[in-house]
C-alpha cells in the first residue's frame, strides 16, 4: 500500500491540533482506509502505510515529519511492539497501538513497550479526535529545553496555550541542528516553571544510528553494570547532548535489553554472529552498515571472514565454523548495503542450524552462513569437514562491542512458540544443504539454499544485495557463485557486477511465500500480502531489525531496512 502524501517537516501552521501529522500503520487495508478518513475528518494530516518497515523508513526520512504514530499490534513484517520500541528509541514520538484484541496482557505489553495509548478496534472517530493530547503532553516536557534556543525568549512557559505547543513544535521542527538541540537543561529549570516535575522530560533529541552507536559504545566501554548517564555522556563526547538525554535513553535501552533477555531462551538453538576482527575497522565499523567497508581485502585471517550482507544477517549469524572451516575470504566490497563480518571458528560444536532457522533471522542467518560456507570454504580449506560444521549458536554481541550487541539476543527471542514449528520445517532444508556441502566443494545448488520468498521488490533487493555481496566477495576468491545464480530468486536478474545491481530488474514473481510451510504465491501488491507471516510476526524482523536500527543507515544508505526484511523473508525459504 502506498502512503498518502502529506506535508513534511514543516510545522503545522493551523491552530493546533488541526494539521497534526499522523502516521498510520496497519496491514489491514480496510482499516487503513477508514482511519485515514477519520483522521482527515479531524483535520489531521494523514500518512498511511501498511508495513512497519515502510513506516520506519518514512519516519527516518523525515525526522520531524510526523507528530504521532498510530500502529496496529499485529503486522506481518514486524511486531507492532517492536515498531513501537524503535519509534520510541529513535524518534521519540508518541505511539498509539491498536488492536481488535483487548486482552489485558496485550494492553499491558503495549504500555510496557512505551505506547502512550492502546485503542480497541473498532475505533470510533471520537477516540481519534483526542490523540493530539499525547503530542501536547510530550511537547510540554520538552519545551524546557526548547527555551534555550535562540530567539525563544518569548515562549510562554505556561501550561495553557497552544502557542506553547506551537512554538515548541516549531522549534523542534526547524532546529538548525537537524533535530537535535540541546543544551544543558540545568539552566533552564529555574524560572521556566513549566509543568509537572516529570522526571522524563527530555529534549527532543533524535537518536540517530550514529548517536545511538556512540551511546552503545560508551555503555560497553564502561561496562553495562557500571554504567551511568554521566559516564556515558562523558565518553560520548557529544557537546550538545545532556545528561538528561542520556539518562532517558539509557532507561529505554535498559528496558529494551531486559525485554530481550527475557525473550531469549535459546542457547543451543541460535546462531549468533561474532564479528570478525576486521583489521580495517574499528569495532563499530565492522558492524555498522554505515561503514560500508568491512571487508578485509584478501587478507583472510584464520577463522574470520567477512562478506557483505545485510546487517541483519550478520547480526544473527554466528558461524562457528567447524573443522577446517576457517577463515573466509573477504572481499572488499564496496557494498552499499550493510556489510557483515562473520567469524568462523574451528569449533565443532555448532549445533544444528535448525534452531534459529525458523525465525526470519534464523533463516537469514542460515542463508548467509550457507552462502559464506559455500563460497569460502572451498577456497581455502578442504571442504571435507563441512558436514561436521554446525553452527553454534551464540548470543554474542554482534556489534562489535556495541551495546546493542545484545541484539543477537533478539535472535533467540525470535524463537518463540512458533519457533518449534518452523524449526522443523527448516531442518530438512538444512540437512539438504549440509549434504550438499559434503558433496560439493564448490557451489551448492542454490535452489536449496535460497528458496526465496519475496514479498516485495525491496525484499528482492535485499536478498539481491546479499547475494551480490557474497557473490562479489566470492568472486575474488574464484568461488563460483553459480549456485546463487541458479536460485529461483531473482538472482537471474542479478547483475553480475555485484554491488549496486539494479534492483529494478528483480522479478516480482518470486513471491513465494514460504513460511512455515505456507506457500502462497504472492503478488507484489500488498493487498495480497500473504498473511502466513502473520502468525509469526516475530519471524520477521525481530533482532535483525534492532541491529539494523542501531547500525542504521545513514545517507549513504548502506543498509536498506527493506533489505533486511527481504532477507528475513526470503533468503532462506
Amino acid at each position, binding site marked *: 500500500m502506498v502512503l498518502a502524501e502529506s506535508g513534511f517537516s514543516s510545522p503545522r501552521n493551523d491552530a493546533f491540533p488541526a494539521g497534526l501529522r499522523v502516521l498510520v500503520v496497519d496491514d489491514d487495508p*480496510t482499516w487503513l482506509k477508514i482511519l485515514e478518513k477519520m483522521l482527515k475528518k479531524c483535520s489531521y494530516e494523514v500518512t498511511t502505510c501498511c508495513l512497519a518497515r515502510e513506516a520506519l523508513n518514512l519516519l527516518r526520512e523525515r525526522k520531524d515529519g510526523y507528530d504521532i504514530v498510530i500502529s496496529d499490534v*499485529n503486522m506481518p513484517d514486524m511486531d507492532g511492539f517492536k515498531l513501537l520500541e524503535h519509534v520510541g528509541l529513535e524518534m521519540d514520538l508518541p505511539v498509539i497501538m491498536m488492536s*481488535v484484541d483487548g486482552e489485558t496482557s496485550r494492553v499491558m505489553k503495549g504500555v510496557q513497550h512505551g505506547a502512550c495509548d492502546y485503542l480497541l478496534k*473498532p475505533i470510533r472517530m471520537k477516540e481519534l479526535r483526542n490523540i493530539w493530547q499525547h503530542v501536547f503532553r510530550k511537547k510540554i516536557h520538552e519545551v524546557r529545553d526548547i527555551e534555550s534556543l535562540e530567539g525563544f525568549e518569548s515562549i510562554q512557559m505556561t501550561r495553557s496555550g497552544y502557542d506553547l505547543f506551537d512554538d515548541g513544535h516549531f522549534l523542534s521542527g526547524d532546529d538548525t541542528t537537524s533535530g537535535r538541540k540541546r543544551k544543558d537543561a540545568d539552566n533552564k529549570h529555574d524560572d521556566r516553571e513549566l509543568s509537572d516535575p516529570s522526571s522524563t522530560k527530555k529534549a527532543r533529541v533524535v537518536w540517530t544510528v550514529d548517536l545511538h552507536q556512540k551511546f552503545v559504545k560508551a555503555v560497553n566501554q564502561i561496562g553495562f553494570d557500571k554504567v551511568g548517564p554521566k559516564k556515558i555522556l562523558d565518553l560520548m563526547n557529544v557537546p550538545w547532548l545532556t545528561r538528561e538525554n542520556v539518562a532517558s535513553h539509557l532507561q529505554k535501552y535498559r528496558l529494551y535489553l531486559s525485554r530481550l533477555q527475557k525473550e531469549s531462551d535459546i542457547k543451543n538453538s541460535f546462531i549468533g554472529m561474532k564479528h570478525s576482527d576486521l583489521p580495517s575497522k574499528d569495532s563499530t565499523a565492522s558492524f555498522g552498515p554505515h561503514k560500508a567497508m568491512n571487508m578485509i581485502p584478501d587478507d583472510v585471517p584464520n577463522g574470520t571472514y567477512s562478506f557483505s550482507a545485510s546487517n541483519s544477517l550478520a547480526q544473527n549469524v554466528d558461524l562457528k565454523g567447524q573443522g577446517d572451516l576457517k577463515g573466509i575470504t573477504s572481499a572488499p566490497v564496496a557494498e552499499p548495503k550493510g556489510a557483515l563480518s562473520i567469524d568462523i571458528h574451528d569449533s565443532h560444536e555448532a549445533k544444528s542450524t535448525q534452531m534459529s532457522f525458523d525465525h526470519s533471522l534464523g533463516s537469514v542467518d542460515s542463508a548467509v552462513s550457507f552462502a559464506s560456507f559455500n563460497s569460502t570454504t572451498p577456497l581455502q580449506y578442504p571442504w571435507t569437514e563441512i558436514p561436521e560444521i554446525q553452527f553454534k549458536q551464540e548470543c554474542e554481541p554482534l556489534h562489535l562491542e556495541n551495546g546493542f550487541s545484545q541484539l543477537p539476543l533478539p535472535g533467540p527471542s525470535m524463537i518463540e512458540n512458533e519457533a518449534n514449528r518452523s524449526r522443523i520445517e527448516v531442518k530438512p532444508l538444512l540437512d539438504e544443504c549440509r549434504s550438499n556441502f559434503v558433496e560439493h566443494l564448490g557451489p551448492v545448488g542454490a535452489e536449496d539454499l535460497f528458496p526465496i520468498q519475496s514479498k516485495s521488490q525491496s525484499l528482492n533487493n535485499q536478498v539481491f544485495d546479499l547475494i551480490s555481496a557474497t557473490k562479489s566477495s566470492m568472486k575474488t576468491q574464484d568461488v563460483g557463485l553459480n549456485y546463487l545464480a541458479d536460485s529461483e530468486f531473482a538472482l537471474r536478474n542479478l547483475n553480475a557486477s555485484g554491488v549496486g545491481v539494479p534492483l529494478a530488474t528483480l522479478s516480482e514473481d518470486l513471491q513465494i511465500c514460504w513460511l512455515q510451510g505456507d506457500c502462497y504465491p504472492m503478488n507484489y501488491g500488498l493487498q495480497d500480502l500473504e*498473511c*502466513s507471516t502473520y502468525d509469526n510476526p516475530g519471524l520477521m524482523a525481530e533482532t535483525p531489525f534492532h541491529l539494523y536500527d542501531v547500525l542504521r543507515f545513514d545517507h549513504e544508505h548502506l543498509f536498506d531496512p527493506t533489505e533486511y526484511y527481504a532477507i528475513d523473508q526470503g533468503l532462506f525459504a
Partner: protein
Amino acid sequence: MERNPIRRQLAIMRQSLFDQGHVDEQFVQLEELQDDANPNFVEEVVTLYYRDSARIILNIEQALERKPFDFRKLDAYMHQFKGSSSSIGAKKVKAESTLFRECCKSGNGEGCMRSFQQLKKEYATLRKKFGAYFQLARQAGPVETASRPK
C-alpha cells in the same frame, strides 16, 4: 420517512441490516464518514473488505485442509479476519470469528470446522445483502445524513 420510493426502500433495507444483527454501530461510523469528498465511501470500504478478507478466508480454508490443525495459525488468521470484519461492523461474522477462535484456543478441531462453515455462510449472506443495498443506493443517489437505527 422517505418520500422517494427508492430511498424508502433503501431505508428499509438498511434498517433490516441492523435489526437482523448483520451490522452494528461501526457501520454507522462508516456512514458518517461518507461526505462530498467521498460520496461512496461506505461502498468502497465494504468492497475493500470483501476483497481483502477473501484472501484470509482462503488461507483458513487451506489451513483447515492440513491435518493436524495448526491451531495457532488458524487463530492468527481468524484474528486478522476478525479485525477486518470489525472495520465494517459485520456483527454476525465477527461473532462467529470469536467462536472460531475459542475453538482454536481449546484445540477443538470439529468446532473450528463447524464454526468456519457457519462463518462463511454469514459472510456470504451479508455480502449479498450489501450487494443489493449498494445497488439500490446508487440508484437512489446521494443521501444527506445517516440515520441512526432505532
